[in-house]
């Protein structure tokens, strides 16, 4: 019997062991593990797409005693995005890291990957805690891999904040177990009822996740940590790791705490999101370094995702709500592809120029057409211009906001969009100067193509062919 659910988590673990044991072959073994992991994860998504919700009772005990893995449309969508991005990051890393760094990068990277897949597939609140910790530790370790002062200091802070977040989450889980005596998400959802216990547990768990998702004003740790990591790591951190925390918050919101939600909490999340949009975009505009700009842009983009909560809360169940949810997921996925592509391309520009000060990037940007195009395509998706997935998602969200009469979210999102246009074009304008004409479009296929492909997916793939996402989300995520 082959069950793709545990495979998606264990294959990278075995890969991590293999590259730990033979660091000299880290790149080859790591890429092999990456390909196998992607295959298993995508087969999960494909099976959910065709057959519906997938579930695996690990250990054969079944709930409530055992732990289950479960893939519904929501998990399958995030899983597919994360694994595609992770594959691109892996290919890129194969060309980016020299031998000495590669031996440190690969095992940690595969552990992080395993944590991501585990998190998207987990159906048990405590198991989610373990995946969160694995994610947090491997992410911080990867971020500090260069060993420079800035990187280590920033990632130490990230590690500590992450620990605080997990602790808060675990406290919530303890409370849930104390009150309801189960840990499986489905069983908790059945048992939960409005009241102070559910309230406190929700505050603790989602509060902890907000810390990890870097929602304003808990974003302070993100920009230095993401800006100082090596490019492939920044890509993974910004595109996937914070996204995983958001996924979990959304999952808890939709599946666990659905009976106890109220608009005040949703509005609070939305207001924080709005503040993140404005503040993050503004700081990105003022940033002097390319990667810092990208990191602040992540703060802003996470804000958009949290604006979804008040909209979801105000929309009665039905087609409109399903539509809105799909748009939010589309926004998250598009940002995953776009931000990863942005960071990967920025890494190439940085490598060529020897620095990433935006004002002095002209020559490097013009010498690397493929990387600059990748930044442009990713930028289009970050701004939310058509034909990107972001545009589509924002359209649906804004239309729903207008239907509900909540026009202020539209104002916030448009302000964010314009600021994003300003900071993205501030970068792109560097590509137009009087430096010599580049000889060819692609200079280093191994690093430039992954970035370009991610940008293309964000801007064309998800913008024009997003319809399947709606179909996928019908599997369990709606309703």
């Amino acid at each position: 019997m082959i069950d793709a659910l545990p495979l998606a988590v264990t294959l990278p673990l075995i890969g991590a062991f293999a590259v730990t044991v033979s660091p000299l072959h880290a790149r080859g073994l790591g890429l092999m593990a990456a390909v196998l992991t992607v295959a298993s994860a995508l087969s999960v998504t494909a099976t959910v797409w065709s057959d519906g919700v997938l579930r695996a009772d690990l250990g054969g005990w079944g709930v409530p005693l055992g732990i289950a893995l479960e893939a519904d449309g929501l998990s399958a969508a995030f899983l597919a995005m994360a694994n595609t991005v992770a594959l691109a990051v892996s290919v890129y890393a194969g060309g980016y890291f020299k031998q000495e760094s590669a031996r440190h990068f690969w095992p940690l990277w595969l552990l992080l990957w395993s944590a991501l897949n585990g998190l998207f597939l987990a159906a048990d609140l405590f198991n989610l805690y373990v995946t969160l910790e694995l994610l947090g530790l491997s992410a911080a370790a990867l971020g500090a891999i260069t060993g420079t002062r800035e990187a280590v200091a920033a990632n130490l802070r990230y590690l500590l904040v992450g620990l605080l977040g997990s602790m808060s989450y675990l406290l919530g889980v303890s409370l849930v177990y104390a009150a309801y005596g189960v840990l499986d998400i489905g069983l908790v959802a059945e048992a939960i009822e409005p009241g102070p216990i559910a309230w406190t547990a929700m505050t603790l768990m989602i509060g902890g996740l907000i810390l990890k998702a870097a929602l304003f004003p808990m974003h302070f740790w993100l920009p230095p940590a993401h800006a100082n990591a090596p490019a492939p790591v920044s890509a993974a951190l910004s595109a996937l790791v914070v996204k995983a925390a958001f996924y979990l918050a959304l999952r808890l919101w939709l599946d666990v705490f659905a009976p106890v939600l109220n608009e005040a909490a949703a509005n609070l999340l939305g207001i924080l999101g709005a503040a993140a949009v404005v503040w993050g975009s503004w700081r990105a505009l003022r940033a002097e370094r390319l990667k810092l700009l990208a990191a602040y842009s992540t703060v802003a983009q996470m804000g958009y995702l949290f604006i979804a909560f008040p909209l979801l809360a105000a929309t009665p169940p039905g087609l409109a709500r399903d539509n809105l949810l799909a748009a939010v997921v589309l926004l998250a996925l598009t940002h995953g592809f776009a931000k990863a592509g942005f960071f990967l391309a920025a890494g190439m520009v940085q490598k060529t120029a020897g620095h990433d000060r935006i004002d002095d990037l002209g020559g490097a940007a013009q010498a690397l057409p493929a990387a600059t195009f990748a930044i442009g395509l990713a930028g289009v998706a970050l701004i939310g211009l058509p034909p990107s997935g972001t545009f589509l998602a924002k359209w649906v969200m804004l239309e729903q906001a207008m239907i509900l009469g909540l026009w202020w979210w539209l104002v916030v999102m448009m302000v964010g969009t314009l600021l994003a246009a300003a900071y993205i074009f501030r970068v792109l304008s560097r590509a137009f100067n009087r430096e010599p004409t580049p000889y060819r479009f692609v200079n280093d296929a191994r690093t430039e193509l992954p970035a370009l492909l991610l940008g293309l997916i964000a801007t064309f793939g998800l913008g024009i062919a997003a319809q399947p996402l709606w179909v996928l989300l019908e599997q369990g995520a709606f309703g």
Partner: protein
Amino acid sequence: MSFDAWLPAAIVLSSMIPGMLIFLLREESHRLRTLLNMTGALVKLGLVIWMIGGVYDGHLYEARWTLAPGLDLVLSADALSVLFVALSTLLWLVTTVYAIGYLEHSPNRSRFFGFFSICVSATVGIALSGNLLTFVIFYEILTLATYPLVAHRGTPDAAHGAKVYLAYTMGGGALLLVGAIWLQALVGPVEFTQGGILSVSPEELRVELILIFFVLLAGLGVKAALVPLHGWLPQAMVAPAPVSALLHAVAVVKAGAFGIVRVVYDVYGVEFAYANGLLLALGILASVTIIYGSLMALTQDSLKKRLAYSTVSQVSYIALGASIFGPIATIGGVVHLVHQGLMKITLFFCAGNYAETLGVHKVSEMDGVGRRMPWTSLAFTVGALGMIGVPPVAGFVSKWYLGLGAADAGSNWVIAVLVASSLLNAAYFLPILHRAWFRPAPKQWPQEHRHPGRFEIAGALLWPPVITAALALSAGLFAAAPFTPLEWATLIAEREYGR
């Protein structure tokens, strides 16, 4: 999917795909790039001719692609869209030839022609948009694709011009987006329908709908360079001449004007717009723009800037036509979409040629250029006379119908605007013609280039203005013949007014 559905998509893709391929080419692959460019342009032209025939016979071309539930990408062809498609396809072909000649030996040609092709794809997409969502999508893509062209030269001036251009058009795009979303939230998906879709809208939405009209108008007005949203156009003059041609005649300002026509006729419906005073507001705005643009043109010594302000003024004739209630004025406005394009592109090509051969950039340097560059100057003269409205050049036809329409609708003040603007047009164009033909040439031109084997300029730069001037002339001379812009505009007006 049947071929009928594929045709609009194929017209968009016929320039999109070559554009994408061109990006990947090495800089020296000159022949391959030219081949791709010309193949795309000719294939597109062929497809458009096919489509014109079909639409004339009442054939329905529609491609529909669902992006998300309730959000469809619709490309469809009606008479109005075919008019714009035909214009931009024809002018793109000519401009491509011109650009290949103009940019010979200059750097970054792959990037330039790639965006150039995407730019025209976006324009065609705008023309063929079957609903407001599709229109917004292509409208924004057009902004994206023109930015690199404006910034192309990489000089500080170009960077500044591009920044201003971007600030204006992004702001306009945002407003358009807000309006479109707001409208869709109120009335559902907005499909472009002859006669408009709001005639049946409930009374209590009226105030909101009027507000939305102005939001949309502001969004479109940026590209259409309506005063006070025109500021980017003179700044964008730093771009290479083919780009100016593109901005002023083929794509950008046209997209704005076309959008205004679409919103008035096919979204709001001319009856609704008239009944709620929207037409009057638009008419006043257009008139102010016409007069202001002409006055500003009068004060410019830079040739390209003078032409730019002239565009500000002339494009608003289109909006003016839409703002007068009645089919005759509609004909005048719609036909001006084509006529202004033909005349203005001629003028910009000529301006580019003067700069290229003689280094002449200013009106005050133009003494005697007629002798030195007779064919170019002849084309320029045709264009300028057309702008003034001298028969039999195309511009006269537009103004004549606008005037008739205004008289028909009883809006005599519009006639006054037309007369005033024609006088101003004459005031800023005739001196140029006088200098060109009747003043002696200086001993030395500002910066003269000799073209081997040619007295005036290379063929790729000379033929385009001559051809477009000839077209502008014949559009006026043979206005009554079948398949002319005028006849087509009449068809559009009849369909919009349901006669």
